Structures are given as structure tokens and as C-alpha cells.
């Protein structure tokens, strides 16, 4: 299983499934990261965390620990 956490800047991936539960998971989905959504990994923050992804045409910043919940292909 590969997750958003392992992706490198410049990668374009699609969401397979969201793992985890509770508020964080709901928040991730509310922001538009749902099954099948295309994600473009824009960059990693200067200190290595969080990462910036482009989703549904806007920029979103996601913690690596939360990105681990997002299974992608």
C-alpha cells in the first residue's frame, strides 16, 4: 500500500481509500480529498513537513502524519 506521505514533489496520484477515522479523516474529506480525486504533489515545506498538494484546483497543506492516511496510486 502506498500513501500520499511517500510521494515526491511533482507526482500526480489518485486517491484509492482513506484510512483512519474521526475528525481528521472527515476534515480531509471535507476539503475535497475523496475516493478517485486527483492529487498533484506541489512541494514539501522547507523543514520537511507538511506537504503541499493541489486538489480540485486549489492548494492544500497536509501533515505527513495525516498524509499517511491517504492511500494513493
Amino acid at each position, binding site marked *: 500500500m502506498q500513501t500520499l506521505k511517500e510521494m515526491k514533489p511533482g507526482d500526480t496520484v489518485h486517491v484509492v481509500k482513506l484510512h483512519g477515522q474521526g475528525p481528521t479523516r472527515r476534515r480531509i474529506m471535507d476539503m475535497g480529498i475523496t475516493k478517485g480525486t486527483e492529487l498533484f504533489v506541489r512541494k514539501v515545506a522547507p523543514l520537511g513537513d507538511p506537504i503541499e498538494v493541489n486538489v480540485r484546483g*486549489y492548494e492544500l497543506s497536509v501533515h505527513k502524519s495525516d498524509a499517511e492516511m491517504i492511500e494513493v496510486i
Partner: protein
Amino acid sequence: MSIVIALAGNPNSGKTTLFNDLTGSSQYVGNWPGVTVEKKEGRLKGNKEVVVQDLPGIYSLSPYTLEEVVSRNYLINERPDAIINIVDASNLERNLYLTTQLMELGLPVVVALNMMDVVEKSGDTINAAKLSALLGCPVIEVSAVKGRGVKELVQAAIEAAQSKTACEPRHLFEGKVEESIDQIEAILRDNTPLSNLRWHAVKFFERDQSVAENVPLPNEAAARIESLITACEDALDDDSESIVTNERYTYITKHIKGILNKKSSSNITTSDKIDSIVTNRVLALPIFAAVMFVVYYLSISSIGGMMTDWVNDALFGEFVPGYAEAALESLGTAEWLNALILDGIIGGVGAVLGFLPQMLVLFLCLAILEDSGYMARIAFIMDRIFRKFGLSGKSFIPILIGTGCGVPGIMASRTIESENDRRMTVITTTFIPCGAKLPIIALIAGAIFDEAVWVGPVSYFIGVAAIILSGVMLKKTRFFAGDPAPFVMELPAYHMPRLKGVLLSTYERGSAFVKKAGTIILLACALIWFLSSFNGSFEMVDAEESLLASIGNLVAPLFAPLGWGNWKAAVATFTGLVAKENVVGTFGILYGMEEVAEDGVEIWSTLRADYTPLAAFSFLVFNLLCAPCFAAIGAIRREMVTAKWTFIAIAYQTSLAYVAALIIYQLGLAFTGGGFTPWAVIAAILLAFIIYMLLKAPYDPSNLKGRQAKELCQH
């Protein structure tokens, strides 16, 4: 009859600008009851019958974040006459996600399609008529910045409110899901008198506890609903909450194709270009440092600082008191009345207003950073470091500003979204030595340590250590436990800050400080003035014979374990509550000097005779960390909203100061062979406790955020 219109929309959708357009200057800014979420309302420009209620910027109506719960409760319980849903046209998909939820509430909805100018500029087109047909509610194109379309929007909203025809909920869900929700709706219809059944049915399907709790259902009905949900979940291999979210987005993506026509596939915008430099791996930190330097320089060192000095020293130091004194003398009023007016009232008002220039410049800088989109990047850049000890990346600004003055520092925490992070920042900001604590450092360094250069850096180190230790420890207590707010944050597109918005925000924050923080500062200054000017039989006396001195004598034994149980040190510490630089002045007076220099050089030799280096260092540590001055306490009260949280903050700061000073003095004494007292044992136990708190596993309540939200729902 008046009409209430609620303004709902995503953060960064231009809601504030539209709200300002609609209401002009007739705004009221406060907090929602019991929480530090800003509540703004105003009356419509040109029609005072219409009340516009601004809701917090939200992405969804989930029951998890405070902003969302506040908005949801308001819409469900207060039932405004209409909702204006402001939608950022340049970010249509995600904005419409909230729209699909608002449409289910059974209220008239008007969609304001904002930022059409941005869309047009990029060459994309949006078919508003088609969008209106899809949503089943009026869609008005506006540009809040240019004031375009606002009149039509107001007209549409008033008509919608008067017609009282609720937005007909679209059936957005497909197949199995729609079927289940329909069946739940039928069960609810048979068992409850609810009006907006559709919304409740969806919430029941999502297993939204805070809604279900308020709707009593017979056991049999509840069981039938549960089995419907489970069947659907099994069929789709997902939990019901995710199913609903997925369905909403699927619905939007499916239907948006004929409405939004993208011109080009290239998605590199000007904003992306700016961002590739500003948050570049190499350049981000230097640029950040430069921006912070400019903010600090403008608000603390140059303009803001100079104006504050002028207000403090010239206006309220000489001009006003001088003028008032002359006036009072010519009137021949009693001496105590003169003192009350000059020292008590004018001094108190001066203490409040003195900080204002600094604060206004700072607020202006912050508003520009927020409006341009850079503030979100600060969190992006700094988050890694600050997250480690329970703060937010945005905590950097309050702490940096706090090195100049804690009052604007605390007020700067406003920009932090998560309530927990904000409270933690408010509590820890004043640990960093502010400008007014420098004289105390200079006094101790000069009098005791032969002006050693290490005292200054060590003081800052102690401040930083206190912030980090507090962050790590407090995060593990019940008050701050729970997941840090999920850091899934939008990085809004950069744009030029708008003068009007920036000025309004500066004015709002400035006046909020004067109103809310002002009262407590005024009262506290008057109280200390009274205590330090009168004795027990209400005669006016000098400070060393005053009630304050008696209190100092009374509490001095409390400080004995810290090595400075001498009443003078206790009184000096108390007067530090008015302003920290008073500590030095008070020492001067108590040691018989008429007046001392800022670093108290006149009393260095006397102090050296009275205090051992260890005791003096313990005194320094206590004064650096303990409760800040009243102005800062006022700011804490303003940011914490409740008296309870203000008390927690002050109590924590003072306890930490006491414990730190105790550990330093007692263990220092024991290790340097200065003697071993039972207090050393207590100090060792406290030190062990701190180490235990630093190492222990985090407190783990199951879903504290959800619980807070639930408590709020029950209000």
C-alpha cells in the same frame, strides 16, 4: 418587521469583504457565547430593518470543529430568514460542497458567486443560469472587492427571505444511498414532528450524535434506522459519513462539467509563481526572517515603539498630568482627590492607551500578512518546529512580538485558528522577556553578577525553555489533550492586500482591545494605586507604609523558600503587576532612594548586601515567568474570553514561576553546599514531576474535540 440574513461561506471566499460592503460601518464584533470564535453582525447599509449575521468561515457543517458547530447551531436553532452563501467562483468545486449542505437546512438560500473577475481573467467561464437551475436557488454574480452585483444580491436575498420558500433540497445521492435516506426520512416523518426532515435524515444516516441526541425516537424506529445504515455501509464498503461526503463531491464533479468551462489545462497561476519563490526550500526561511524583521521593526522598534513611548512618556507622562495638576491646584481640590485623578485615573487610562499605537501598527502588519495570503504560509513554513510542543506555526508571531511587548503579542494570537493552539500561545507568550523586563534583568545583572554578559541571554533562554516545557507538559493535561486540530489547511492564492479591508480589520482589533482589555487594566491600576497610597486607616502614606507594604509583609514568608522572603522584594514583585519596569523603581523607593536610573545603579551595592547571587537569580526567574502586567492580563482576558481560562493562564504562569525559582534556589543551595532544607526535597520532587510530565504518554480521551462540540450543542 426585521429580516435576519446569515452570511455563510468558506474561509477566503471574500466573506469579510462582502460583509463590510453590506453593512458599512454599523458592525458589532464580539464572540459567540462561551467560545473564542468571532461573532460579527451589522445592519444593512440603506435598510436598517435587515440584520446581517456573519458566520465563521467554514468548509463543512460537520460536528467536529467549533466554527462549524457554532454555525450549525445558529442556522438550526435561530433559523435566519435567509442565507447568503458566498461561493468563491475560482474554487468552485470545494465551495459548492458547503452549498450542498446549506441547501438541506430548509431555509431560503441565495448563492453569491464571488471573484468572477478572477475567473474571467483566467479565461474560464461559469454559466450562472445553469448553476442556479442545478441548485434550485438564485445565483447572483458579484465582485465583493469592486462592489459589483451587491445591490442585486441584497434584492434577491430580501425577496427570498420574504417569500419564505425554502431552497428545495436536491436529491444528490445515488441508488442505495438515496434509497436509505428516503426510508430514514419516512421513519422520522412517522415518529417526530420535525420540519426539515431531509436534513435530519441525512444527519441520522451520518450517525451525527449531536443531532440524534436531540431527537427522541422509539427504540424500534432507531433500530430500523441503524439496520438501514449498516446495510448501506456493507453494500458500499465504507462508513456512512464517508459515503455522504463522497456522494456530495461526486454530485458536484458530475454536474459542474457543463457549468464551469476551463480555458486552458495549464494550472500555473501568478500565485503559484510567487509561491514557488516564497516557500522555496532554500529561500523560504530567509524570506520569512526578513518579513518578521520588518513586522517587528515597524511595530516595536520604530513607528509603533516611538509613538507608544511618546504616549507613555510625553502625553500621559508629562503633558496630561501637568495640565491636570495645574487645573486641580487652581481649583484647590483635596490632596487625595488630586492623587486619585493624577496617579489613579490618568495613570490607568495612560496604561491602556499607551499600548495602542504599537498595537495599531502591529495589527496593520498582521492584516496585510493575512489579507495577502502570507499568514497561511507562515504556518506552512514554521509548523514542523512548533507542532512538536503543542503550538501552531503561527505562534511564532505572538512570541516574536512578545519580546517587545506581551500585550500586542497576546493580541496577535488571534490569527491562530485552533482554539487549543491559541490558548496555549496566549499562556506562553509572556514567558519571553518583554521590553519592560529588561530593566529587571539589568538590575540583577548589574547589582549581583558584576554586569556579566550571560545574564541577558540566559533570561531569554529561560523564556524559550518555559515555552517549550509548558507546551509539552500542558499538551498532556486534560485541558489541552486530544488531537491537535488536524492540520489540513488551505493555502489561499496570493493577492494584493486591500486598503479598506486592512484598515477595517486594524480598527476592529484596536477598538476591541480598548473596550475589553481596557476595563480590567483600569480597575487593576486603580486598585494597586489605592493599596500603595493608603494605609489601614485610610490615610495617605508613602509606599513603604502603605497597605501594599503590609500585604507584602504578610506574603513575604511565601517567597522565603525561593530565597527572597524579604518584604521589599515581595512588594517590588507586586508593583510589577502594574508594569514590569516598576520592580526596579519600587526597589529604589524601598531602599530609600528618591528616584533611580532605569537599571537601578544607585542601589546595586545595597542589593548585593541583602541578596545572595542564588537568591537574586531565583528572584529574576520568578519575575520573568510569573503573571504578567495588568495590561497583558487584560489582553489575556480578551483572548481567553472566559474568566475561568484567564485564571488558568495566570495561575499556571505564577505556579511555574514559583516552581522554577524554588528548584533553582533550593537545589542550587544543596549542590553548592549552602545547606539542605526540607524544601530541597520538595524541589526535587517537583523537578521529578516535571521530568515525568515531559516523558509521560499523552493523555488520551477518545475524541475530545467531538466532546467539546457536543457540550456546545447541548447549550
